[in-house]
């Protein structure tokens, strides 16, 4: 019941703000959505607490029948287990804080009611996704968050860049969704159901099923695993399908914080955990997941080191951290990946909101080269950014330290080739993470002011609506790590997760993690601190070094600055040929396809005028027509009948 309220309250708020926003005004729309979000977060947190610490038992809340066609059935149902409860609690809390933050951030905007309506709609879709009891409802939420993301990225639809970014996000996600949809279809094909409980119950029967395609037999579970991961790659911006995420920063900053840091982009990770019982039987697919995650983590970290837009740096950082989560999931440590998801949600939202606060203070300036020297003017934001970066860099005792260390230990403990590849990638990425974090911090807050004095005069601390969420998220970024580490990934993880994350008997990675050498546990922390020191040396002590470095390695610098030329590659290999093909098809469409109905229409009109010509008005003609008709009918009978 609590869960249902938590899921549906944002929908209610969104409907009110969206449909009646014009009638009730911006203030009322804000009030309604935020009240609904508060209600949702209270319910969400109590649902989580009562399940994990209280007496509530996991179960399914059926809201109604959705589709019933032949053997295919799907209900509107909420799955109540630790996995969904954790996600609901996290999503509602972060979303509520971001709603509140938006009061301040969006206070000068023209269409506030619309913004809050979209924001609540997104929250509802995300909650529907995480509480889904079957894959179809999950897909509904999946598409719902995609839609809300599209609407929010393109919220300032009068900006061409925002429109293009929204479109890009939608199209790239579509590629992933195709894989996901195919995966769902294959699951239904094999298990005859899309309900999680039925699927998991039938796991052992279909282990050796094969899927025959292109003349080769593939194990069905591997194919499903790959397809589901393709879906996750789109939504979670993994290497190859990541290109939409940095561009999505065209949206308002609270959107970036909510959707492109804390919640939506983690849907792919959530999907991996949700389907964990099945994925444990698909080692090949899991190796692929690890490989892609590790590559993404490293790739995004390198790019982040050269970006100058403050939000883009954080965006690539998000991309990189998502790669960490997939590494964890890929080696079977779903609990660890969920743990990092949880901590990341807090510190990354904190970073985004902090960046938003900076942008707000700097009169909407996002380029870090035009900042600097403002740390005394906005001390609260400065502190919040410090906390966020410490958590991100994995410095103890902040939240990121616990989860990131665990990921590296898990990668090491997997004792597989790809696991070690993951470990080394993540290790280098850890160094780079710390480096770009402090690069960001120093370029933004320290040094000589590089903005014009007009902007500098206006630098001011943000209003309470923006600072209070910062403080609360900062608290989260500090506390979630050590307070949950033991429960979530410790020895007795089973007490916390219950049956929500089912792992195969052969999967004992959590136990192995405890046995890794101390040097492995220490390595990321050490490298993190090293990264901080490097950044301090480069940007604080000898600010000339970065420029000289870039000048001496121009190829590498441009390669990183241009994000490994991914956009250019796609433009040359996919976008341009596609649009050439489209232009050609359009011409065919105009001449051949349109020609057919046009020709038929012309034929119809001509036929019409011919028929009308028969209508001479002469009685004799009409009588003849009748007689001919009779004779024709009689002949028809005599010949045919």
């Amino acid at each position, binding site marked *: 019941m609590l869960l249902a309220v938590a899921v549906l309250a944002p929908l209610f708020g969104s409907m009110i703000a969206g449909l009646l926003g014009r009638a009730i005004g911006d203030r009322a729309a804000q009030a309604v959505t935020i009240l609904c979000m508060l209600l949702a977060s209270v319910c969400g947190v109590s649902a989580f607490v009562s399940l994990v610490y209280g007496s509530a038992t996991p179960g399914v809340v059926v809201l109604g029948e959705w589709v019933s066609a032949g053997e295919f059935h799907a209900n509107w149902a909420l799955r109540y287990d630790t996995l969904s409860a954790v996600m609901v609690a996290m999503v509602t809390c972060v979303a509520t804080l971001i709603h509140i933050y938006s009061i301040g951030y969006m206070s000068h905007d023209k269409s506030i009611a619309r913004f809050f309506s979209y924001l609540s709609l997104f929250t509802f879709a995300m909650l529907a996704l995480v509480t889904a009891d079957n894959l179809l409802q999950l897909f509904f939420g999946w598409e719902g968050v995609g839609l809300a993301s599209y609407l929010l990225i393109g919220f300032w639809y009068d900006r061409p860049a925002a429109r293009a970014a929204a479109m890009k996000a939608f199209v790239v996600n579509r590629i992933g969704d195709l894989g996901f949809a195919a995966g769902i279809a294959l699951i239904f094909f094999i298990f005859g159901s899309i309900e999680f409980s039925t699927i998991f119950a039938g796991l052992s029967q279909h282990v050796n099923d094969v899927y025959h395609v292109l003349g080769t037999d593939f194990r069905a579970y591997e194919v499903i695993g790959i397809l589901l991961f393709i879906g996750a790659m789109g939504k979670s911006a993994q290497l190859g399908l990541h290109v939409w995420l940095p561009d999505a920063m065209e949206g308002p900053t609270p959107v970036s914080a909510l959707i492109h840091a804390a919640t939506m982009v983690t849907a792919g990770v959530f999907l991996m955990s949700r389907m964990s019982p099945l994925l444990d039987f698909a080692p090949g697919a899991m190796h692929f997941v690890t490989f892609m995650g590790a590559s993404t983590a490293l790739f995004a970290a390198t790019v982040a080191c050269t970006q100058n837009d403050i939000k883009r740096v954080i965006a690539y950082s998000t991309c990189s951290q998502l790669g960490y989560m997939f590494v964890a999931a890929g080696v079977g440590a779903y609990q660890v990946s969920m743990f990092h998801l949880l901590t990341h949600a807090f510190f990354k939202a904190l970073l985004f909101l902090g960046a938003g606060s900076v942008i707000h203070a700097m009169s909407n300036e996002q380029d870090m080269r035009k900042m600097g020297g403002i740390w005394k003017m906005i001390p609260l934001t400065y502190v919040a950014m410090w906390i966020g970066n410490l958590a991100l860099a994995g410095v103890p005792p902040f939240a990121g330290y616990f989860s990131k260390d665990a990921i590296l230990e898990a990668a090491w403990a997997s004792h597989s080739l790809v696991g070690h590849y993951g470990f080394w990638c993540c290790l280098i990425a850890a160094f780079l993470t710390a480096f770009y974090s402090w690069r960001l911090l120093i370029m933004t807050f320290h040094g000589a002011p590089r903005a014009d004095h007009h902007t500098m005069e206006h630098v001011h601390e943000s209003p309470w609506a923006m600072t209070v969420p910062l403080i609360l998220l900062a608290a989260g970024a500090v506390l979630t790590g050590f307070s949950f580490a033991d429960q979530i990934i410790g020895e007795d993880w089973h007490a916390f997760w219950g049956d929500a994350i089912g792992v195969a008997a052969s999967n004992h990675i959590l136990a192995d993690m405890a046995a890794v050498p101390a040097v492995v546990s220490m390595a990321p922390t050490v490298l993190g601190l090293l990264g901080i020191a490097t950044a301090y040396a480069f940007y604080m002590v000898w600010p000339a070094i970065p420029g000289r470095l870039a000048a001496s390695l121009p190829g590498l610098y441009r390669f990183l600055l241009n994000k490994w030329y991914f956009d250019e590659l796609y433009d040359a290999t996919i976008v341009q040929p596609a649009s050439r093909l489209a232009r050609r098809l359009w011409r065919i469409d105009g001449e051949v396809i349109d020609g057919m109905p046009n020709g038929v229409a012309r034929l119809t009109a001509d036929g019409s005028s011919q028929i009308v010509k028969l209508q001479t008005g002469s009685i*004799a003609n009409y009588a*003849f027509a009748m*007689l*001919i008709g*009779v*004779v024709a009918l*009689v002949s028809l009978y*005599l010949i045919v009948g």
Partner: protein
Amino acid sequence: MIATAAFYVFAAILIASAAMVVSARNPVHAVLFLILAFFNAAALFLLLGAEFLAMILVIVYVGAVAVLFLFVVMMLDINFAEMREGFQRYLPVGAAIGVVLLVELAAVLTGWKFAPGIATTRAAPMSALTNTAQLGRLIYTDYIFLFQVSGLVLLVAMIGAIVLTLRDRRPSATISRRQNIAVQIARTSADTMVMMDVPTRGPTMAHIKPLVTEPGEELADPIDTHAHHGGH
């Protein structure tokens, strides 16, 4: 034998005159051939022993319908040349259709046989009664429904004729006038004529003067009275 010969004679004349109805150049001739056709059909009825139908055919179709046709044809100004032209224009098509239909019907009718159940459905001959009496009995008993509906059809026909032709309801109309039978009958010669002594070598009609006698009728032109008093 004689009856058979008579049948073929009458049937041949019937078909020939029917052909003449549609092919005669002069429409008056066409109507006259139609009358001939009716007579022959009546004769065929007589051969079948249906004397009532034969007489009805003569009285109704020859006496009323065909004569009416004749009047209409004579009174209307029909452009015969145009009619001929139309006839010739449609002749090939019409002939083709006619031939096809004839062939088809011939093909069908060669396979003629009575339905097996037909003997039971035929009523026993009522020789004690005349044709007329038999028909009367049937019409007023078994077929009373059809008889009454026929009455309704005639009623509608009557209403239709009146609606489409009678025009005296409009105040301004002067085309037709209502006949007042009572006044017409009650009129005496004294009302209409005045006898006058006249010189024997005068104009012959001058001594008869029309009088205005019918109430409600205002005649602008006294000469009109002759036509009017003749009734409709």
